[in-house]
C-alpha cells in the first residue's frame, strides 16, 4: 500500500469501509485507531493490522465488488448479482465502448470500467448534478478517470452525446422507453447490445414496446436473485419412543452422537443427530429489478 491508494478496512463480513491511504492519516475503528504511515503504507494488501486498542482488522485491495458493498449510497444501487449478468449479457470485455445512464452511485460504472480496461471507454450520463460530480471525483480518486467520461444531462432529452461508438448501452432510469432511440443512436452501425434495468413491470412493458418499435431483436427479460446460505452445524434431538437401550439400532437411524444432557432430573443421555446444512437467511432479496436485454441487429 502506498500514499493515495484506496483500501478497504475489513472488520467482519458485513462490516467494512473504504479508506484513502494518506501519510499521517488516521482511521478510527471499534478496535481503535489505524495510523496510515505506520500501519498501512508499505504493508501488503491482505495484511492483518493491529489497531490501537489491540484488535485486528484486515486491509484489502479494493475490487468493484467490495466497492459495491461499501460505497456511499447516493441512490438505490445495483448489486453484484445483477452486475454480473449485465456484464455477460452485454458481452463486455477489454476494449468495449459502453454508454450508461444514470451513473447513480457508480457501482455498475466501476464494474464496467474494470471489465473494459485498458482499451475500452465508458460514457456515463447522470441527470442529477451533485451525483455526477461525486462520481467524477471518485473515478479520479480510483485512478480510472482516463477510462470514463461523465456527463450531467438528461439522457431522455439529450441522449448520450456520442453517436455510433458503443458496443453496449445500459439504462437504469425511470422512463427507459424514452431513451431507447438515443440508445440505438449511440450503438455502432454494425450493432450491439442494450440492457434496461427497471424495478416495475409496467416500465418493462413500455420499454419492450419501444425496443420493438426501434427494431431491436433478441429481446429477453429476466430476473436474477441471489440466494446466500449460512453454513451451520445443526443438531436434532431424537424422540424417545420408549424403545429403551435394548435395541438402539431399531430406530432405523444413523445416530451420529450421544450428548449427555446436564439436568436436575438427571435425564438419560439423549440421542442427537448432527449434520451440516446450508441454511437460507430468514428474509432474503425478493426483487431488485427486471433486466431487459436486446440486440441492435446489423439489418
Amino acid at each position, binding site marked *: 500500500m502506498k500514499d493515495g491508494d484506496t483500501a478497504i478496512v475489513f472488520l467482519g463480513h458485513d462490516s467494512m469501509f473504504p479508506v484513502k491511504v494518506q501519510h499521517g492519516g488516521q482511521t478510527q475503528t471499534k478496535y481503535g485507531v489505524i495510523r496510515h504511515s505506520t500501519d498501512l503504507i508499505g504493508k501488503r494488501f491482505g495484511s492483518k493490522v493491529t489497531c490501537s486498542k489491540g484488535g485486528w482488522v484486515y486491509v484489502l485491495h479494493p475490487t468493484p465488488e467490495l466497492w459495491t458493498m461499501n460505497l456511499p449510497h447516493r441512490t438505490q444501487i445495483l448489486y453484484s448479482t445483477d452486475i454480473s449478468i449485465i456484464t455477460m449479457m452485454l458481452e463486455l470485455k477489454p476494449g468495449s465502448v459502453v454508454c450508461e445512464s444514470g451513473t447513480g452511485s457508480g457501482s455498475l460504472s466501476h464494474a464496467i470500467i474494470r471489465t473494459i480496461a485498458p482499451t475500452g471507454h465508458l460514457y456515463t450520463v447522470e*441527470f*442529477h448534478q*451533485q451525483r455526477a460530480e461525486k462520481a467524477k471525483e471518485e473515478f479520479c480518486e480510483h485512478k480510472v478517470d482516463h477510462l470514463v467520461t461523465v456527463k450531467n444531462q438528461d439522457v431522455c432529452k439529450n441522449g448520450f452525446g456520442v453517436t455510433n461508438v458503443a458496443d453496449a448501452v445500459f439504462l437504469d432510469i*425511470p422512463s427507459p422507453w424514452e431513451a431507447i432511440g438515443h440508445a440505438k443512436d449511440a450503438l455502432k452501425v454494425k450493432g450491439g447490445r442494450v440492457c434496461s434495468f427497471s*424495478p*416495475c*413491470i*409496467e*416500465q418493462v412493458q413500455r420499454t419492450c414496446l419501444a425496443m420493438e418499435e426501434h427494431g431491436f431483436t433478441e429481446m429477453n427479460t429476466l430476473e436474477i436473485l441471489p*440466494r446466500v446460505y449460512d453454513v451451520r452445524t*445443526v443438531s*436434532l*434431538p*431424537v*424422540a*424417545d*419412543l*420408549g*424403545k*429403551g437401550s435394548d435395541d438402539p439400532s431399531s*430406530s*432405523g*437411524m*444413523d445416530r451420529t452422537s450421544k450428548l449427555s*444432557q446436564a*439436568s*436436575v*432430573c438427571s*435425564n*438419560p443421555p*439423549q440421542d442427537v*443427530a448432527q*449434520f*451440516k*446444512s446450508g*441454511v*437460507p*437467511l*430468514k*428474509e*432474503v*432479496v*425478493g*426483487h*431488485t*429489478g*427486471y433486466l431487459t436485454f436486446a440486440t441492435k441487429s446489423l439489418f
Partner: protein
Amino acid sequence: MAEQSKGDPIEDGAYVVLKRGEVFKAAQVQTRKKVIFGKQWIFLDNAVGHCYGTAFEISGGGKLLPLIKMEETATETMEAGADNRNIVDDGKSQKLTRDDIEALKEKGIKGEAIVQQLIENSTTFRDKTGFAQEKYIKKKKKKYESIITILKPCTRILAMMYYAREPGKICNLRYDTLAQMLTLGNIHAGSKVIVVETCAGLVLGAVMERMGGFGSVIQMYQGGEPGRAATDCFGFPESFLGMLHEFPLGKVQSLLSGKFSSEITPENTQDCLQTDKKLNGSPNEKEDASNEVENSISDRVLECSQSEEQQIIEVSSGELKNNNENENKERKQQAFEKKKRQIEKRKREIEAADLLKERNADGLIIACRFHPTPLLLSLLDLVAPSRPFVVYCQYKEPLLECYTKLREKGGVISLKLSETWLRNYQVLPDRSHPKLTMSGGGGYILTGITVVREDVRPNIKSLELQKTDEPSPKKLKLEEL
C-alpha cells in the same frame, strides 16, 4: 336468515386476532385486562358486542373506539414533482424535530394528524414524485397511526402471525408450507389423523379446523403434556374437543409391540407420570423447573392409589417437618387434585391407544423439532394402507435420510421431497413488482402413500416392484384406459 346478518358478535372471553396494517396478534377478550400490541397498551372491553371485522381506533388510555366506516385515508398527493433530480438530501428536509413530534403525541394529537403535520413541515415533500410522496406517507402513517381491526381467528391468520412474530415456536414452518401439508395430507372431516408436532399446537389447530369437529385427531407428544398454546388461539367450540386425543410418544414402542396395558392400575398411573418426568422438552415442563423439589414430592404422592391417601400424607409430612398443619392440608388437597388429573389423563391415554391400535389411521402429519426418521418409521405402522403421510422439517438433510430409510423399509410409494417458493407482489398502477424482500425458505416436506406390506423381508419380486416405483414415464404405454 342468520346468514344475512352482519356476523357473530365478539363475546367476553372470546379468542380474537388484532390486526394493525399487516401485523397480527392473537388475544383473548377479557374485561379490564391489558393487552400489549406493538408497544401500545390496549383494553379490549369495548370490543364486546361488536361484530368480528370491526375496526377500532386506540384512544388515550388504550380504550377502543369503534370506527363507523373504515376509510382508506387517502391524503391527496399534491404538486408532485416529475422526478427527484432536484432533491438534495442534506438530512434537513424535515422542520419538525423529534421533540416536536413527541409533544404533538403528548397533546393527544392523533396519528393521521401527525402525518399531515409532517408533510406540511417537509421542505422536500412537494418536490418528490407522486410515488415517493405516497411512500413517505405510508411510512409515516405506519409509525403514528393506531387503528386496529378485530378478527375471528383461523388457520390463515394464525399461521401468518406465528411465522411473522414467533417462527422459532413453530419450527419456522411457513404458512404456505402448512397449507401444503393439510392438502397433501388429505385432511378432511371424518378421518382419523395422527399429528406429531412441536409447533405450539398450530398444526394441530389447523388439522382440527379442517376436520370441523368430525372424526378424530390423535396428537402424539413428548414431555409432560402436549403444547397447545396456538391451538387455544383458534377458539374452537367445546364440541370440537370430543375429537381430540393425545398419546405420549414414549409409549409408542409398547403400543406397537402389544405390551401397552389398557388397565388403570397404580403402576400405570405412576408409569404415566414417570414418562412425563423422564422426557424433557415440553414447554410446560421447562416452566416447572423451578418447582422441581415440590414436584418431586407430588410425584411420590401419586405413586399410590386413592385408598392409600392417608399414608401418603404421612410420608410427605415426614419429609416436611417444618410445615404447619395448614400447609399439610393444602398439600393434601393438591395431591388429591393432581392424582385425579393423572387418572383422567391415563383414561384419555387408553382411549387414544384404542384408536391407534386399530392401525387404520387415515393420515399422519409430522412437524416437529425431533429427527423425523425414527418417528416416521414407527408411526407409519399405525396408518392404514393407501393413505398419504406428510413430514415437515426445517432442514433438507434429515428428510434425505428419511427418504432413504423409507425406501429400504418399503410399504410406501410415491415418495416426494419438495419445498415451495412463495413470492408476494406489490400491484399498484405503474408500480407493480415482486416485494423487495421474501422469505428465504419455508422448510421441506416429504410425502408419500402407504401401501400393504406383504412380506417383512423383501423377496426378489418385491425388489423388482420397488424398481418399478419410479419408472421413466416415457417407457410406459397403457394399451387401454
